[in-house]
């Protein structure tokens, strides 16, 4: 059952190289977004940016993890399917629940937070979660750094004569 060849490697998310590759791809996509929809509403454009950021992150996963594959495949479903949610049962005295039940409940929550990981065994879920967290951390670092650079340069935007050249 173990796919050793396809085991995710969370360590790569910490490298500068991976972050730079991610940043470059994100910039490229952002420029395309800017060109294609200059007058888009703020809300919609922010969502487009978020989805692009997630998609590029998933691609960086090289298809080795469930969460990355889930993000890539979910883009084909344009409609967000909302399934009827089960009513969550909170017992009056939670401490009396068996420890195994509490852990399973928390694991279930974790499974819903990580894309495509709802019905996994505990070890696999934790493996996916650790790779996912490392990837998210890189995503935040890259986007924060991009934001800082853009806001710094945007603040000093001086009209570039070449922009108006025919």
């Amino acid at each position, binding site marked *: 059952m173990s796919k050793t060849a396809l085991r995710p490697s*969370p360590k790569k998310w910490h490298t500068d190289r991976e972050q730079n590759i991610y*940043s*470059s791809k994100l*910039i490229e996509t*952002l*420029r395309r*977004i*800017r060109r294609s929809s*200059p007058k888009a509403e*703020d809300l919609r*454009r*922010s969502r487009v*940016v*978020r989805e692009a*950021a*997630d998609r590029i992150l998933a691609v960086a996963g090289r298809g080795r993890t469930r969460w990355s594959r889930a993000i890539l495949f979910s883009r084909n479903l344009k409609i967000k399917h909302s*399934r009827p949610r*089960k009513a969550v049962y909170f017992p009056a005295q939670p401490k009396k629940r068996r*420890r*195994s039940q*509490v*852990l*399973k409940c*928390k*694991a*279930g*929550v*974790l499974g*819903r*937070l*990580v894309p495509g990981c*709802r019905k996994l065994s*505990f*070890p696999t879920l*934790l493996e996916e*979660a*650790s790779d*996912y*967290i490392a990837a*998210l*951390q890189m*995503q*935040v670092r890259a*986007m*924060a*750094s*991009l*934001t800082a*650079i*853009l806001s*710094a*340069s*945007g603040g*000093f*935007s*001086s*009209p*570039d004569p*070449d*922009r108006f050249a025919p």
Partner: protein
Amino acid sequence: MHSSSFSSAPPDHRRFTMSSRRSRSRHSASSRITDEQMNELISKLQTLLPEARLHTNDRPVTNANAAKVLQEICSYIRSLHREVDNLSERLSELLETTDNNSAQAAIIRSLLM
């Protein structure tokens, strides 16, 4: 795709043998994992938590605090999602107002360093 439900065990003929009755848990998937293994796995996840969240969890993961650590991890993922949302919003705003050429130059400089 239905939500994860550990209480519905897969149909398994082994459950009806005498030996399986000895295992305390009715859920065949989880009974293969020992408590120790579970705590070890959760410890690994714990190492990913940032400093700020570690102060509640600097003790080794035991049966007693495993659930707490899991909860902390879930909360951390949610906060990461929120951060990405906020950054997406800011980036989309900056897209409108940024002077393209100077931004390009700044970005290229920083990536090359």
